């Protein structure tokens, strides 16, 4: 993998080259190198399987050039990139593409400029993750499976469920992946000429386990900043949660009090709330919080912050992919929409939008601090900071704060009749983001609560939620102090979600009744 110094040298040379081009009025060079390594897992006790199904990787490096040139039609801006070549030749090829594709965008103001904030996060990752070998990658995947199989083999509950003691006949399933992301980048521009660089590496494990004969499913996941921390924990957690979900019951349609677990919280945030908390969603009239910056959008219990510079959190970076410092953006404070995730382009755009006040609900100039561009990233290809993309706003670590936080058992005791939702599936804003209507199904780790106690697990895939995100946010009545990082399939951010978020009423529909007769 290319070293940071190679990337720094490349952008330095790029800047020197660009300054020799008279038509270039401003420019930015971004070089990166990324490795994404996965072991995809597939184990089934009743169907032939590989266990570690796909030990694999994709890697890339290259340079992206953004330029501003004068033309008879006005200021033009263009972008081009070249893969696998950090030399001057690569710079020339990227520059040629940028020049060829340059367009007049009347809304373009400038390339990113200093915001007055300073970088606070340096040297925050474990360098040994960068040196993971092929053998190490494969071994790590088998370790996760060992954790799951160990839990299955050691379970008395499972042994008593198995006829003739054959656990394999129970239809045991372990799927998921171990993901290793290795990222390096360097950036420089006319506006910020000092070459800056960043390096990060994380490991995540995401496991779903089933005892299929009992329609029981459980999830396990873990995030690691240190290679030595890797263990089979995600696998054993998934398997244990599946065992805990045996003998699930059906629950009738209706409105229920709900405690959302970490994964459902992350799922709702990733699909509805965070996309609505970006300046671009306000500009294009799509946010479900349109016109409500500075107004109540959730219960006062909710305070949610995007913290991109926090040491020890998995989504942290030192600088954004625009060369600006990461930091803290308070998104919702005491239920009030307080800040938005921005990249430089969208930040400038909303500040200069004649309809900005109508869209935000407040004067953009009065709230410019709330939209400071700390979130411009070039995430792509399943992870990594891509030299071939322009930045868009992305969250990093979403954390929750509450002075009224309690523990999960206390929340459960408050529920007369309700549902502890452990995992949601296929959550979408079905009528567009603006409307806030959502639908999703419960697919694992969910329990029926009665008289303040967990009564029974809920059978997999038997309930659908049809509701609205505004109802859910305004209906939050309690939150736990403790949080854990939730890993979502396909998401770039990590949500450090509370162990429980209590909502007073959510609408459920019973579904898939025909499956009782089918299997």
């Amino acid at each position, binding site marked *: 993998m290319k070293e940071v110094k190679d990337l720094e040298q490349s952008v330095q040379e790029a800047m020197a080259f660009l300054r020799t081009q008279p038509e270039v009025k401003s420019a930015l060079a971004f070089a990166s190198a990324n490795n994404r390594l996965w072991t995809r897992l597939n184990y089934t006790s009743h*169907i*032939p399987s590989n266990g570690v199904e796909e030990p694999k990787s994709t890697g890339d490096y290259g340079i992206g050039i953004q330029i501003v040139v004068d033309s008879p039609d006005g200021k033009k801006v263009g972008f081009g990139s070249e893969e696998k070549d950090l030399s001057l030749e*690569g710079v020339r090829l990227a520059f040629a593409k940028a020049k060829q594709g340059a367009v007049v965008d009347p809304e373009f103001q400038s390339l990113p400029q200093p915001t007055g904030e300073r970088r606070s996060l340096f040297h925050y990752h474990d360098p040994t993750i960068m040196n993971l070998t092929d053998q190490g990658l494969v*071994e790590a995947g088998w370790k996760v499976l060992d954790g799951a199989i160990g839990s299955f083999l050691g379970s008395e509950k499972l042994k008593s469920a198995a006829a003739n003691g054959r656990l394999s006949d129970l239809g045991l399933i372990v799927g998921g992946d171990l993901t290793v992301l290795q990222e390096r980048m360097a950036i420089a521009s006319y506006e910020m000429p000092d070459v800056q660089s960043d390096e990060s590496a994380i490991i995540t494990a995401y496991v779903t386990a089933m005892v299929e004969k009992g329609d029981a499913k459980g999830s396990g996941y873990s995030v690691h900043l240190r290679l030595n921390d890797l263990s089979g924990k995600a696998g054993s957690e998934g398997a244990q949660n599946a065992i805990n979900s045996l003998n699930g019951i059906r629950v009738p349609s209706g409105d229920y009090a709900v405690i959302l677990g970490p994964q459902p919280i992350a799922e709702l945030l990733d699909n509805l709330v965070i996309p609505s908390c970006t300046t671009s969603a306000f500009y294009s009239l799509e946010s479900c919080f349109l016109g409500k910056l500075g107004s109540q959008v959730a219960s006062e219990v909710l305070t949610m912050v995007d913290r991109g510079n926090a040491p020890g959190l998995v989504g942290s970076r030192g600088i954004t992919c625009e060369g600006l410092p990461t930091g803290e953006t308070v998104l919702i404070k005491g239920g009030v929409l307080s800040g938005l995730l921005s990249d430089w382009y969208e930040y400038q755009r909303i500040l200069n939008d004649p309809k900005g006040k109508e869209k935000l609900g407040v004067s953009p100039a009065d709230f410019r601090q709330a939209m400071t561009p700390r979130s411009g990233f070039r995430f792509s290809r399943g992870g990594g900071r891509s030299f071939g993309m322009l930045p868009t706003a992305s969250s990093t670590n979403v954390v929750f704060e509450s002075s009224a936080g309690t523990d999960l058992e206390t929340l459960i005791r408050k529920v007369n009749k309700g549902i502890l939702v452990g995992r949601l599936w296929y959550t979408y804003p079905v009528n567009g983001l603006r*409307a806030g209507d959502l639908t999703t199904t419960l697919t694992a780790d969910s329990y029926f609560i009665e008289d303040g106690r967990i009564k029974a697990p809920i059978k997999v895939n038997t309930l659908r939620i049809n509701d609205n995100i505004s109802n859910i946010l305004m209906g939050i009545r309690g939150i736990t102090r403790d949080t854990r990082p939730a890993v979502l399939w396909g998401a770039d951010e990590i949500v450090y979600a509370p162990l429980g978020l209590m909502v007073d009423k959510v609408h459920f529909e019973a579904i898939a009744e025909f499956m009782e007769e089918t299997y």
Partner: protein
Amino acid sequence: MEQKVNIALIDRVKDKLSNLILESKKKLKDCSYVDLRVAVSERQAATAQDGMMKSSIRDYGLSYGLRVIAGKEMLAPGYFAESLGTADVDGLPDVIESGLLQAYERAIASSRMKSERKSGWEDLGQSLWSSKLAPIKACQDTIPGVYKISPLDISLEEISRLTQEISKAVASYDSRVKVNGILIETSLARQLFVSSEMTNIDRTYALTQGLCVVVAVGNSGNQQTHYDCLGHQRGWEILTDGVQEEFIKLKPFMHFALDLAADSVSLSEARPCPSSGKDVVVVTDPNYNTLLVHEIIGHPSELDRGLKMETAYAGRSWFLRNFNQNMLGKQVASHLVSAYSDPLLPGYGHYEYDDEGTPVKRIMHIDKGIFSGFMNSRQTAAILGAEPNGHFKAADASYVPLIRMSTTVFGNGERDPQSIISEVDHGYYLAGHRIPSISESRENFRITARKVYEINNGKLGEMFRDGGMMANSKDYLMSVDAVGNDLRMYPIFNCGKGQPMQGKKLGNGGPTMRGRARLVGGKG
């Protein structure tokens, strides 16, 4: 200077790469199988928003992906992939050879660890198997792209001009159109597949698409966002002339985008769709059924889901619980319903060989109501004891292929669509697809429509916004009592599957259908 990454590159490296794979398989100890995909593309694209240009680009791409199956006591797979650039062209075989060794190392390491666990996991180790691929005929073929105007012969200026012109036209269509986004792209791509079994497939294809997003706000403040896609494996001509084929009929992109604007504006003035609370008669148009067949037939008919390989991500399939409990040969729909996948149908999902070199064939999933088959890969076919049917595809050569739809459709019926509506005393007509949500094994769905019309006494009445239908999949399919003769196919530009996520272009479609389901409006 001549651009080094171009479609003709494959001609220069084809034989060398084929020999590399054959020699490597012989040379590497305990190596059972090797395959390689190399893909080159040359692409042009432009975007505009509200009549203002945002970007344009002419670029190229080069990538490869390798699979090695190797091992001493047990065979296991290993993979390696990279995105490449101009600097790699001259030494391409060496670059790929280096990657091949890494894929091999991973396979060998995994093989050893799998063998250890076969005994170490007691009873649970017995299902670990020595990786196998069902046999196929090794084919050698060269397939040219089909287009009238090559994506490379149209200038970037012309592409930008059309993009901006359409965006301006949509912006000025009506004052209630507040935001619009237009993306046009046109590309020529070529993929080489070679394997140690002497398969050699060299396929070129054009791909052109236009995407349009419109945000309209009605006079009373109701906002509607709608998007649509026009696309085909053809050249530039589909944007200027549209498509007029037997089952694919699409207007030129300007008209297509303006139609979307018109719909968005009328919907912004419409009342919200009511919820029925119980099953009602629903008639769905071919465009709505495009997403319906995709979600409740296509996806659960992917055999990797059936064999639990997607349990953590895309989910399982209620069509198969295990080898003894499944729906093969059993009724899952009314006898009027048939559905199949056919990669030879035109459109986004068209191809002749999949990414394992398997020659494709049409697969019936539902044959007059009876569930009859899955899309598969060589590995999953080997597990089920079936014949491979050519549905193993990746969105790019640098991704590991997955079982994906090609073109999956509801079969054509015999009824005149107008008569299907005219027979309805009271019900609803759902036109155009919007957003889906399906339960994990695909046993229940809720899919919103672009437009929902009330039907009274056989006639379309009021149009509603923000509505759709919800049902258990089997219950809905069994309720179908009329199928039209108006099969149409549409492009799906963004089907997501896999870890990492692969957004794949494919085709779906169907005729007008009538069944029963719950009508669901919004709560917002």
